[in-house]
């Protein structure tokens, strides 16, 4: 059982197990795995709490009502599972600035948070714009051979490589 507490498993082992998890969700929930819809539903719930029931009338929330569905529960489980893995393997650590970032941009918290916030904004916007993220399109859609998902996945990595390379080449001068 020692393997259960290792800090890292081989990437291909993890991938195959995720593929198996997809088979289970199709078989038992009749749904592919996805993550970004739960974020849209959560922002709808927050907006509803702040602005009242008119929020639910917005066309987008009529499509994706701001309620807790099975996918929301799935995404809620992700930090719990990662916490169990991190604590049991001794890799849990409270960290404001990732070491790679700190090594290049310095240990300041605010520059990292502002960049992450801007990146998160674009990632949330783009995921809903494309109708899925790295899970919903990248894995679930690609394994169904959906054209939308192969195109979106290529665009995810093209955009990601572009912005990461620009950011890091700017820093290195």
């Amino acid at each position: 059982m020692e393997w259960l507490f290792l800090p890292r498993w081989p990437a291909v082992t993890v991938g195959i197990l995720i593929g198996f998890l997809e088979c289970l969700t199709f078989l038992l929930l009749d749904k592919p795995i996805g993550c970004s819809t739960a974020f849209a539903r959560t922002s709808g719930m927050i907006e509803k709490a702040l602005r009242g029931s008119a929020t639910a009338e917005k066309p987008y929330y009529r499509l994706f009502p701001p309620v807790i569905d099975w996918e929301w529960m799935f995404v809620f489980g992700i930090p719990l599972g990662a916490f169990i893995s991190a604590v049991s393997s001794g890799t849990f650590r409270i960290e404001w600035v990732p070491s790679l970032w700190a090594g290049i941009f310095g240990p300041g918290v605010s520059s990292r948070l502002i960049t992450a916030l801007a990146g998160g904004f674009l990632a949330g916007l783009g995921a809903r714009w494309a109708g899925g993220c790295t899970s919903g399109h990248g894995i679930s859609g690609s394994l169904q051979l959906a054209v939308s998902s192969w195109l979106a996945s290529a665009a995810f990595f093209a955009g990601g490589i572009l912005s990461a390379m620009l950011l890091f080449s700017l820093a290195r001068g």
Partner: protein
Amino acid sequence: MMGKTPFLLPEAARKPFALFLGIVFGFLLQKGGVTRYEVIIGQLLLLDFTVLKVMLSAVLAGMLGIQVLLQLKLVALHPKHGSVGSSVIGGLIFGLGFGLLGYCPGTAAGAVGQGSLDALFGGVFGMLLGTAFYSGIYPRIETTVLRWGTFGDITLPEVLHSARWKVVIAVAAVIASALSAMSFLGL
């Protein structure tokens, strides 16, 4: 009655089961290292191919498994609707954010569980703002940008006019070769 998915769980069991699957998924993401900023940025800078290896092997295993379940008539497919305006433009916007954030929606949630606070206060909060913004602009882009180059929910076998299992085998061979090449090149 025989539905399309005979093993679909009863309504009351779906959310608890989804929570359990989410816990397993988060556990796997953390074990794979893809909840780490360094690993995701390493992929986008083309220095560390962990993310691609996880994704490709997940697609390979899931695609083969789903194909078998499909032949046995135990599952139904749910390919997403797409258009150039949605998949490509939305995908590029997502990608630009992905590179700045260093996490995607699922791995940001996982990173929160391992104590990465930038994934919570930057990533999760930013994504909530981004999705809220999208709900505001949706009525305007729904009738314009999202309809550019619409191709719907087609799949590769339909595009190629080929039997599904043949395309599955061909794509599986390509992915397996790509994974072997990465391992051969020591990536």
